[in-house]
């Protein structure tokens, strides 16, 4: 049995996720689309906090909401005149996209609801991981250690920095 506050929080967050992700892809103005994306990312961060992963929620807010959305807003303002509406999407393309998305959602939803027993399990009591333990797992080479992906990501970030500099350089 969950506490009432948790249930109310869940319904608010689920509603925000559903409404704002629909608005993200249907709104005509692209800057509004980025703003709705920001709301979706914040709601996801709230779910991470609710699931007892505070570090992940902080990373989500710092990297996604603080980094990626700001990058999007910069790119939009550099390439668009503010207030000017984007072009309409032609209706055949819209119908095709909606059919493809709905087919995918229907197939996955059928799968989810046909495994209702599996999907109906309750939230178990879990160990709340401290930052110290997360850091140890991230830098260990044991069975559950993640040192190799950590180093691979650091090389990837270096490659991205070099790639960004090369792309953005004026010739």
């Amino acid at each position: 049995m969950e506490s009432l506050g948790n249930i109310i929080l869940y319904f608010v967050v689920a509603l925000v996720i559903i409404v704002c992700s629909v608005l993200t892809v249907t709104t005509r103005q692209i800057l509004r689309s980025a703003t709705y994306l920001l709301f979706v990312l914040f709601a996801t961060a709230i779910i991470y906090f609710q699931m007892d992963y505070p570090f992940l929620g902080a990373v989500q807010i710092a990297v996604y909401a603080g980094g990626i959305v700001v990058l999007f807003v910069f790119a939009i303002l550099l390439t668009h005149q503010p207030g000017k509406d984007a072009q309409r999407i032609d209706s055949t393309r819209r119908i095709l996209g909606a059919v493809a998305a709905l087919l995918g959602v229907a197939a996955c939803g059928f799968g989810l609801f046909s495994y209702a027993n599996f999907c109906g399990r309750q939230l178990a009591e879990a160990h709340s991981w401290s930052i110290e333990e997360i850091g140890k797992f991230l830098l260990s080479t044991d069975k559950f250690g993640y040192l190799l992906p950590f180093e691979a990501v650091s090389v990837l970030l270096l490659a991205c920095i070099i790639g960004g500099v090369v792309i953005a350089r004026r010739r």
Partner: protein
Amino acid sequence: MNLTLLMYLVPSLIMFGCGVYGFLTRKNMIAIMISLELMLNSVDLNFVVFNRYLFPGQMDGMFFTLFAIAIAAAETAVALAIIINVFRVARKVDINELIKLKF
């Protein structure tokens, strides 16, 4: 009333469906990137929820999400750099109008 695994998977599924719809219908490259972020975010949410409900004693799903966030940030930065550079050369970001590379 209990919060079950299904109740977290349904918003994630709808988020992914919206991402697919936006990816297929939008013509603006930045809007396509935004739809892509929606899809990536829903996958991250699935990793975390499955980890918390099925294996509450481990944190592999959390690390997968952590690395997915890092990779998504890097990918977005490079993609937006490319888009801005394309805009500087061609003065447009609509995929229908960018036909210089078309065979």
